[in-house]
C-alpha cells in the first residue's frame, strides 16, 4: 500500500454572478442589472446563498485552473470560500476570503485562485463583471491509494444550488467545467512538489506578517525572520549587514540569499565574500520569506552557513498601486506597482524611487529599483520570467570614534570634517534576469529548471581609519587619508534544475521520493582597491588590489525522502560542489615601495580547485497532531575570497558542520511555537579587518544556541510573531602569532566579535474592515515591530552597546485611497548600526594612537513618514 497523500480537493460553485449598473449604489438583482464592464461588481445576496441566475445570464466558465496546494505540516481541514471578482475579460480581479478555515488554507486557496482564468460572465451575450464564490475544500493528508480524484468533501453543503458535477479530472490538472450557468466541478490537487520544512529552525514568514511593521526599505522585510538582525551602516548603496543566529554575516557571507529564484550572493566580492545587496527589493512585492536556519537541505549551496533565505515575489492585491511616502530628513519614496488583474499572483511590474537627505551629515542617498515578473500556466508547466534592475548612489558618513563623541569633539550623527571623510560614498548597480519553469506530472513527479544572468557593478569610497596608511606603491608617501576605493564588476550566469519522482523500487510499504538537483554558476569578476587623496581630486596614491577572478561552482545533489510511517519522515541527502578558481593578481609579488623591482615583473597568477561534499539528513516525527519533533544534520561550505588562495590549494572553502534539534507545537490552527537548539562549527571563519576594509581569516569557530519562535493568528486580521535567538559563539583556534602580528586581536576561547548573544523580534499587526462610507469600503490597520539586540563583544576587549528599536505603522483606508503614518525608531534610541574596535587616527595634527578604539556608525534616529496609497 502506498501512503500517498493525495489530499486536496477543490470544488468551485458558481453561486452568484452579479454586477452593478452605472451610477447605482445598491446592488442590483442579476436579472435587472444593466451590463457594464467597467462597473464594480457587487453582492446581491448573502454570501453562501447564491441566487439562481437569470436566463439571460451566463455564468463564467473556467478556462484554466491551478491546483491549490495543501500546506505541508497543516492538519486543518474544511472549506475555504473565496469571494472572487472577475472582470469582463474573465480574469480574477480580486479575491477575498468569505469563509475562513485556517490562515494557511486561506492562503493556499487565494494563491490558487489567482492562477485561474475564466470565460467571462455574459448578460444577453455581453461580457460583464461578475462576483462568484469558489469554495476550496481541504481534507488533511491521509494515506490512501493513488486515486487521481476524490470527490469534494461536501460540495452540496457549500453549494446547495449546484446543478451538476463535472467529469472526473486528471490529478494535478483541473478539468474546466462545461459551460453552464451553475455547476460544481471537482478539481484534484496534489501535495507540494517538495516538503519544505525539514527542521524546527525552518520558517515561512507569510505576506500578512511581512506587511505588519513598516518597512523603510524592501530589505527590511528580513527583520521578521527569526534571529535575523539587519543594519544599514554604510548608506543606501551598500548592502546591509546581516546577523543570523550567531553569525556576523557582514554583507552576506554566511547567508545564502535567493530572490525569485535568482541567487544574490556574489563570490569573492571586494567588499566581502558573498556580498548580497538586497537594496533592490520592493517590500510590496515580497510575497513570502522562507528561512532555513542551519545547513540540512541539499538544496543549500554556497554561503549557506548560518542558513538560507529565499524570498518569493508576488502581489496578492491586484490592480494599480501608487504609494507615496514623505517625511523626516527629506525622505521621499514613490512606488508604482501594476499587478494585472486576472494574471497570476506572481505577475506584476513595480518601480520604486527613494530619496533621502540623510539623518546627519553626508548621508544623502537615492536609489531606483524596477522589478518585472510574469508568470504563465501552460498545461503541466508553470513558467515565470523575472527581471530586476537597480541602481543606487549615496554619500556616507562612515564611522566616528566613540571617544571623540564622548568628549564632544564630534556629534554622534556627524562626519569628520576632513575631505577624506567627506568624500565617502558608494554606488551600486545590478541587472538580473531569470527564467524558471516548474513542471508537475501526473504521477507525482515534478521538476524545476531555471537560467539566470546577473551584471553587478559596485564602487565604494570609504575611510574607516583616518590617516593610518602608508603607500605600498610610492616610497615615503603616507598620511594622505585612508580613503579606500573599492571596485567590483561581476558578470554571472547560472542554471538550476531539479527533478523529483516517487521511488517505486522500495516497494509499496514505504512511500518515497527521490530528488536530483543541479546548480551551476560562473562569475567573471574584475576588482580593484586603491587609496585616494580627497584633497587632490581623488588622486590615487596607492594601489592595493588589481585582479581578475574567474570562479565557478558546479553542484549536484541527491535527496531521498522516505515516509517510513504515517508520522515519521526521514530524508537522506548528499551534496557535492566543485569549486574552481583562476586568479590573475596583477599586483601579486609586488616588492615593497622601498625596494627596487627592476629585476622582475609584478604579477601573480594562480588557480585552485576543490570539492566540498557532505551529507544532509533530517528526520521529522509527528508525535501527536499538535507536536512534531525534528532533528537534522548537514555539512555545508562557504567559498573563499579567491585572492587569498594559494596556487593549487585543495580545499578552497570553509567547511561547515551544522546540527539542529527541535520541536514544533500547533495549538489549534492558529498558534504555533517552535523550539530548537543548534550546534555549528566552521573550519575557518572570518572577521572584519578595518585596515583593509574587508574580511580576514580568524580560524576555527563553533556556535551553540537556541531559537524560540511563536506565531499567532487568534482572530481574523490579527497576526503576531515573536522570536528570541540565543547563541554562544566561541573562537576555537585563532591564527598563530606572526612577526607582523605578534598580538592578534583574537584569542582561543573568546567569544566571537560582533556577534550579539541575543536577538529578539516581535511583530504585531491588525487590520479590519470598518464598514462603508457611501459605497466606499472603510478599513484600518495598525502594526509594529520591535527588534532587540544585546550587547556584543568587539575585538580588543570592547563591547558594543545593546539597543531596542520599535517601529510603528497605522493606516486608514477609504477605497481606493489609504492615508497612513510610519514611525521608525519610535523611541528615538541613539544606537549604533554597527560598532567596531580598531586603530585609527582621526586627528592628523596630534600624536597617533596605536591602541584599538571603539568606532560606531550611527543608526537612524526617529523617522516619521506620511504615506498615501491609491489602489485602482
Amino acid at each position: 500500500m502506498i501512503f500517498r497523500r493525495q489530499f486536496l480537493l477543490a470544488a468551485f460553485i458558481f453561486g452568484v454572478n452579479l454586477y452593478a449598473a452605472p451610477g447605482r449604489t445598491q446592488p442590483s438583482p442579476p436579472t435587472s442589472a444593466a451590463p457594464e464592464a467597467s462597473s464594480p461588481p457587487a453582492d446581491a445576496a448573502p454570501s453562501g446563498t447564491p441566487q439562481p441566475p437569470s436566463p439571460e445570464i451566463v455564468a463564467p466558465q473556467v478556462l484554466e485552473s491551478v491546483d491549490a496546494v495543501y500546506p505541508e505540516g497543516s492538519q486543518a481541514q474544511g472549506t475555504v470560500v473565496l469571494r472572487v471578482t472577475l472582470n469582463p475579460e474573465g480574469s480574477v480581479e480580486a479575491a477575498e476570503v468569505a469563509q475562513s478555515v485556517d490562515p494557511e488554507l486561506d492562503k493556499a486557496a487565494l494563491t490558487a485562485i489567482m492562477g485561474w482564468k475564466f470565460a467571462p460572465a455574459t448578460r444577453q451575450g455581453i461580457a460583464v463583471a461578475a462576483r462568484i464564490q469558489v469554495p476550496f475544500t481541504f481534507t488533511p493528508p491521509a494515506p490512501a491509494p493513488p486515486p487521481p480524484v476524490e470527490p469534494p468533501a461536501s460540495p452540496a453543503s457549500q453549494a446547495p444550488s449546484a446543478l451538476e458535477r463535472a467529469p472526473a479530472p486528471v490529478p494535478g490538472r483541473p478539468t474546466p467545467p462545461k459551460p453552464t450557468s451553475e455547476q460544481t466541478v471537482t478539481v484534484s490537487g496534489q501535495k507540494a512538489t517538495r516538503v519544505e520544512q525539514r527542521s524546527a529552525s525552518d520558517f515561512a514568514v507569510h505576506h500578512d506578517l511581512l506587511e505588519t511593521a513598516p518597512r523603510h526599505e524592501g530589505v527590511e522585510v528580513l527583520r521578521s525572520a527569526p534571529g535575523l538582525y539587519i543594519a544599514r551602516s554604510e548608506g543606501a548603496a551598500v548592502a546591509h549587514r546581516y546577523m543570523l543566529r550567531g553569525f556576523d554575516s557582514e554583507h552576506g557571507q554566511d547567508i545564502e540569499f535567493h530572490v525569485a529564484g535568482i541567487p544574490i550572493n556574489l563570490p569573492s566580492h571586494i567588499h566581502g565574500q558573498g556580498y548580497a545587496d538586497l537594496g533592490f527589493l520592493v517590500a510590496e512585492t515580497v510575497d513570502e520569506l522562507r528561512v532555513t536556519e542551519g545547513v540540512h537541505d541539499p538544496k543549500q549551496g554556497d554561503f549557506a552557513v548560518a542558513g538560507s533565505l529565499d524570498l518569493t515575489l508576488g502581489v496578492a492585491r491586484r490592480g494599480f498601486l501608487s504609494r507615496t511616502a514623505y517625511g523626516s530628513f527629506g525622505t521621499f519614496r514613490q512606488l508604482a506597482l501594476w499587478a494585472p488583474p486576472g494574471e497570476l499572483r506572481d505577475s506584476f511590474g513595480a518601480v520604486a524611487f527613494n530619496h533621502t537627505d540623510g539623518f546627519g551629515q553626508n548621508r544623502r542617498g537615492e536609489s531606483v529599483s524596477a522589478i518585472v515578473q510574469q508568470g504563465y500556466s501552460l498545461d503541466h508547466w508553470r513558467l515565470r520570467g523575472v527581471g530586476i534592475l537597480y541602481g543606487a548612489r549615496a554619500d556616507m558618513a562612515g564611522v566616528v570614534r566613540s571617544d571623540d563623541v564622548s568628549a564632544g569633539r564630534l556629534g554622534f550623527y556627524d562626519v569628520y570634517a576632513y575631505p577624506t571623510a567627506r568624500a565617502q560614498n558608494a554606488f551600486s548597480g545590478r541587472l538580473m534576469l531569470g527564467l524558471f519553469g516548474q513542471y508537475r506530472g501526473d504521477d507525482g513527479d515534478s521538476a524545476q529548471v531555471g537560467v539566470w544572468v546577473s551584471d553587478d557593478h559596485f564602487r565604494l569610497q570609504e575611510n574607516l581609519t583616518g590617516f593610518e596608511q602608508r603607500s605600498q606603491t610610492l616610497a615615503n608617501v603616507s598620511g594622505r587619508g585612508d580613503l579606500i576605493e573599492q571596485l567590483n564588476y561581476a558578470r554571472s550566469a547560472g542554471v538550476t534544475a531539479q527533478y523529483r519522482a516517487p521511488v517505486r523500487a522500495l516497494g509499496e510499504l514505504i512511500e518515497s521520493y527521490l530528488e536530483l538537483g543541479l546548480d551551476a554558476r560562473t562569475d567573471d569578476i574584475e576588482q580593484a582597491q586603491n587609496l585616494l587623496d580627497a584633497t587632490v581630486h581623488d588622486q590615487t596614491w596607492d594601489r592595493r588590489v588589481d585582479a581578475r577572478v574567474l570562479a565557478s561552482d558546479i553542484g549536484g545533489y541527491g535527496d531521498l525522502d522516505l515516509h517510513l510511517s504515517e508520522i515519521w519522515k526521514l530524508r537522506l541527502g548528499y551534496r557535492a560542489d566543485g569549486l574552481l578558481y583562476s586568479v590573475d593578481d596583477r599586483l601579486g609579488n609586488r616588492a615593497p615601495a622601498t625596494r627596487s623591482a627592476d629585476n622582475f615583473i609584478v604579477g601573480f597568477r594562480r588557480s585552485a580547485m576543490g570539492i566540498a561534499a557532505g551529507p544532509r539528513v533530517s528526520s521529522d516525527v509527528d508525535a501527536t497532531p499538535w507536536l512534531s519533533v525534528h532533528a537534522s544534520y548537514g555539512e555545508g561550505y562557504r567559498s573563499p575570497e579567491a585572492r587569498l588562495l594559494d596556487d593549487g590549494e585543495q580545499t578552497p572553502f570553509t567547511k561547515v558542520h551544522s546540527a539542529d534539534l527541535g520541536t514544533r507545537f500547533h495549538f489549534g490552527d492558529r498558534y504555533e511555537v517552535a523550539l530548537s537548539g543548534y550546534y555549528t562549527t566552521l573550519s575557518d571563519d572570518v572577521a572584519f579587518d578595518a585596515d583593509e576594509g574587508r574580511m580576514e581569516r580568524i580560524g576555527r569557530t563553533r556556535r551553540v544556541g537556541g531559537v524560540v519562535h511563536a506565531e499567532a493568528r487568534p482572530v481574523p486580521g490579527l497576526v503576531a510573531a515573536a522570536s528570541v535567538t540565543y547563541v554562544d559563539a566561541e573562537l576555537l583556534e585563532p591564527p598563530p602569532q606572526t612577526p607582523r602580528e605578534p598580538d592578534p586581536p583574537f584569542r582561543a576561547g573568546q567569544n566571537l566579535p560582533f556577534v550579539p548573544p541575543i536577538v529578539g523580534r516581535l511583530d504585531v499587526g491588525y487590520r479590519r474592515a470598518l464598514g462603508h462610507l457611501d459605497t466606499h469600503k472603510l478599513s484600518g490597520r495598525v502594526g509594529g515591530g520591535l527588534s532587540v539586540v544585546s550587547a556584543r563583544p568587539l575585538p580588543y576587549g570592547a563591547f558594543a552597546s545593546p539597543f531596542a528599536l520599535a517601529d510603528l505603522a497605522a493606516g486608514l483606508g477609504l477605497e481606493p485611497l489609504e492615508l497612513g503614518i510610519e514611525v521608525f525608531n519610535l523611541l528615538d534610541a541613539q544606537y549604533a548600526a554597527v560598532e567596531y574596535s580598531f586603530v585609527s587616527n582621526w586627528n592628523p595634527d596630534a600624536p597617533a594612537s596605536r591602541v584599538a578604539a571603539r568606532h560606531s556608525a550611527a543608526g537612524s534616529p526617529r523617522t516619521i513618514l506620511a504615506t498615501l496609497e491609491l489602489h485602482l
Partner: protein
Amino acid sequence: MSQHRSVALAALFTLFALLPGCVDTGSSEIVIPLEARGTNPGTEFVGRDGWTIALDEASLAFGPLTLCAGATAGELCDTAHAEWLDSAVVDILDPTPRALGEIIGVSGRVRSWMYDLGFVSTLTQDEPLELPAAKRLEGNSVHLRGTATNEALKLTFEIALPIRQEAATERGVPVIAKNTAEPFDQDLTNTPVTLQASFDAAPWFEQVDFEALAKAHDCNPTCPNPIQITPNDQAYRAIRVAILAANHAKFTWTH
C-alpha cells in the same frame, strides 16, 4: 496567571541584561599609572679617559610611550596594547618617583616598548610634532649642564639637543624602541600595577671625548664658560647616539 507572565518577562529581561557579562571577549580595558624618576642625584661619575663628570642639570622630554605585544616594537607595532600619548619633562637628577599620567589600553601580554622624546613623527606631517615637554625645553629633547674635570682641566659644559625622527627613517615610528636584549615582559591585567621609567644620564657620557671638546673650544688655558656643545662636536653625537641606541629608560613594574 498574569503574575506568572510578569515573572517570566522579568526573568527574560534579567537574562538579557546579565548575559553580556558572561561574554568572554579575550581582553579588557586597563589603566596603568605611569611614573618617572632619575637615578643620578648630583654625584660624580667617571667617563671616558678618566674624566670626572658632575651634572648640575639634566632634563628630558619624555613621551609618548607605547607598550607592544611583540618582542620587538617599532614598525611591527601598528596595533599596541597600551599607550601614554602625553609628554612630560623628567628631572633625571631627582630620584623621587613622579606621576606622569595614565597608560590606557587593553589587557594582554606586553613584551616591548617604544617612546619618543618630546617630538612625534606622524604619517601626515613632513616634520615631527613638537610636544609640550619639548617646548618647555625650548625645542629640545634633552638639556644637560655640568662640569667635567681631569687632572689638568675643568670644563663647564651645556648641551641641548632635539631628538626626533630623521627623514631617512620611516615616518610614524618612535625614535626609541626596546632592544631584544632588554628584559621586558608583563601580562597586563586588571590587577593594580604601576609602570616606572627611570633614567640615568651617566651612561650617555661614556663615549664623550672631553679632550677633543676642550681642544675644539680652545680650552688652553681657559675654556668658555660654559662650553656650548653643538652638533659639530663629537660630544654631541656621542650623547645623541647613547640616548638613542644604547642607554634607554629602565622600566619596572611595581605593585
